[in-house]
């Protein structure tokens, strides 16, 4: 109903003129959509602050976690130093979720979504473009946050009893498991963003959407903690997006994990994929 007054290409930045139908059309549609989404997200003042907050919170909480962990001299501390150093991801993900949710619900709250869909009637393309732009931004912020976390762990932990002299290797990305944990944490943040994007597309209201995402992430681990039946607890940890996804950070005691690191990240990827699929379907079928 909203598409009537506007020509299909009228509001699409970088789109070809109305008469320019041709073989390059589909490609430029995608490029145009990407450009539009990038412009929208770039020019909303909140975006840069949220990205900054995600990186700073991730690195800051990681540094605080490393600083609060000590190993008394003479004691044998069974501590996964890599996981400790990446603790900030537990909270940084909340900011990433806000960013992803607002990328969608911001358009609904202002009515902008009607303009967007009028300009780009292929709704799946719109969602795909949003996904791509959010992925890129979170990739950058996540990488900065995670690198900062690893650096903080490398600088702080040796002074707290986790020194190479006592058998705790200095954190280094040249180390296979450390690289997997760090790189996986960045991917984890990206997948959280995609999950949030999907949920937000279904719910469309920022308060409810962020509440749903955070409930999904944080409530299941807390429920699992009171389920004292080990079988049930393990099962909950295997299906919960947060606990399963964060298995990617483990570098010690891998055999005791509910899932292997990559399988855990796979569970989160399935959640994110499912949410995006649901979002895409709802976006296509529902009035904006």
């Amino acid at each position, binding site marked *: 109903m909203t598409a009537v007054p506007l020509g299909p290409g009228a509001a699409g930045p970088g789109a070809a003129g109305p008469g320019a139908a041709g073989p390059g059309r589909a490609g430029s549609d995608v490029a145009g959509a990407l450009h539009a989404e990038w412009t929208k997200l770039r020019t909303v003042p909140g975006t840069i602050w949220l990205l900054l907050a995600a990186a700073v919170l991730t690195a800051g909480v990681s540094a605080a976690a490393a600083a609060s962990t000590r190993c008394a001299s003479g004691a044998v501390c069974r501590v996964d130093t890599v996981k400790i150093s990446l*603790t900030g991801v*537990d909270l940084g993900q909340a900011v990433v979720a806000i960013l992803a949710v607002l990328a969608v619900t911001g358009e609904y709250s202002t009515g902008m979504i009607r303009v967007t869909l009028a300009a780009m009637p292929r709704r799946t393309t719109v969602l795909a473009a949003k996904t791509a732009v959010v992925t890129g931004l979170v990739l950058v912020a996540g990488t900065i946050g995670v690198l900062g976390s690893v650096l903080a762990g490398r600088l702080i932990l040796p002074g707290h009893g986790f020194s190479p002299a006592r058998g705790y290797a200095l954190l280094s990305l040249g180390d296979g498991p450390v690289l997997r944990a760090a790189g996986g944490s960045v991917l984890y943040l990206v997948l959280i963003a995609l999950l949030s994007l999907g949920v937000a597309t279904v719910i469309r209201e920022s*308060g*409810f*959407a962020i509440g749903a995402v955070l409930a999904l992430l944080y409530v299941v681990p807390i*429920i699992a*903690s009171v389920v*004292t039946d080990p079988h049930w607890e393990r099962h909950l940890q295997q299906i919960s997006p947060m606990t399963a996804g964060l298995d990617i950070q483990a570098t010690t005691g891998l055999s005791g994990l509910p899932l292997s690191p990559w399988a855990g990240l796979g569970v989160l990827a399935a959640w994110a994929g499912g949410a995006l699929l649901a979002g895409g379907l709802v976006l296509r079928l529902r009035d904006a």
Partner: protein
Amino acid sequence: MTAGTVTSSGVRAGHDGFGQLLRAEWTKLRTVRGWMVGLVVAALVTVGVGLLAHDSCSNANGTACSLPLGPGGEAVADSFYFVRQPLAGNGSITVRVTSLTGQIPTGSSTGRVRAGGGPGSGPSMRSGLEPWSKAGIILAASTSQGAAYAAMMVTGGHGVRMQYDYTGDAPGLAGAVSAASPRWLRLTRSGDMVTGYDSADGLSWARVGTVRLAGLPSTVQAGLFAASPLYTKIVSQSLGGSSGTGGPTLATGTFDQVALGGNWPDGRWTGADIGGAGAMYPQAPGAFHQAGGRIIVTGSGDIAPDVPGSGGGVNISQTLVGTFAGLIAVVVVATMFITAEYRRGLIRVTLAASPRRGRVLAAKAIVTGLVVFATGLVAATVALPLGEQALRKGGSFIDPVSTLTELRLVVGTAALFAVAALLALAIGTMVRHSAVAVTAVIVVIVAPYILATVLSAGATQWLLRVTPAAGFAIQGAYPRYPQITASYSAVGGYYPLVPWAGLAVLCAWAAAALGLAAYLLRRRDA
């Protein structure tokens, strides 16, 4: 708008009165369907998640899981080796203890330490003492579990103690017992009163404590005992609790002088394990050996209140675990109660109709607080009994609490909901964006629990004292006992602050946030 100038002054006063404002805010809250649905969802998940709380009761002996109750009504572990004879009427027992030794498992078996692990789970033992391994003299109403008692004892790491009726504990002489530095212990009964004394030389005695054991029968069981609590060594700690190795331990006390005063009709000692087979508390078989006036007693188990979650009973606050989920829904609704006004521009109408902005915020706070309190009250009132029923059906034993405690859990949970909602309302007023405000409130409330997996215990305890998450202390149902070594973690229902202090911390945060919100609301353009 409604009351014209022709109406009486009473109605006019009401027109810009606070009551009108309250009604306006209540109408706003009531008529947005999503918010009402959100509150109903909050109540439903609070109840529903609580029903998921699940505990399998594994008892090696296949008997029903249950614990004896002490004189105060609390669940207790009452397993020890008792060398006894009846004492008729008033009298006393005096002993000299010259050694306390023990055996603990080598700890090769891994797995979650639970009740009913059985003595067979850790067959290899090495010599060693638990800090609360104990041997001494005891005077009990009967030999049945949960009977009233008073005891004087030497311990592995806490010197001489007088303990009574499971929860009572008073310190006596410090230091370890040995042949070079023996300990004299004495218990005297006079009516309902039992007094414990200790001495380092048998000449100068110090009174450790006097207790009144109400309803003590005229003939009591008295004598020597030894007990040693479960040995646990925590191997790894996760949000789900800790897994460790462990098993029953043994303590052996040597008494080289025993003197009895009063009427002891039997004139000979009988030894038996109290608790024994079928007990939930893992116990290794004890024994006693008597030779030339010297008695050596070996025993296993503990005479102490049960610490729910550490293997015996279940914590009643498990039924309220849905609070976390319910809080998220409540926080969303309370935040949107103000942020939606900004999003839709309704705030300008609201402030035009009632220019005194502080009063608008106050009205919103009162309406939010009352409605959310009512929601929480309904949710907790239903969740507690339903959850208890579900746990019992699963075969679990819930450590009993007083009615007053149950009342506090229900009302406290409702208050937790209400104050968290006020915090959300205040942060929503400051931030004006629902996504950011909702996230901020949820993160400060759940972060300490999420971070508990990785942070050190000290850091977690600190977070639970100063952050709004301290409010969950209102759901702490049981006291922690210094005379029992257990992992008193927040996840297990033990908080660093006492219940009302924890809620007060949350209230302080909410009050500070509301103050700042009122200030910003007045200073900023809407």
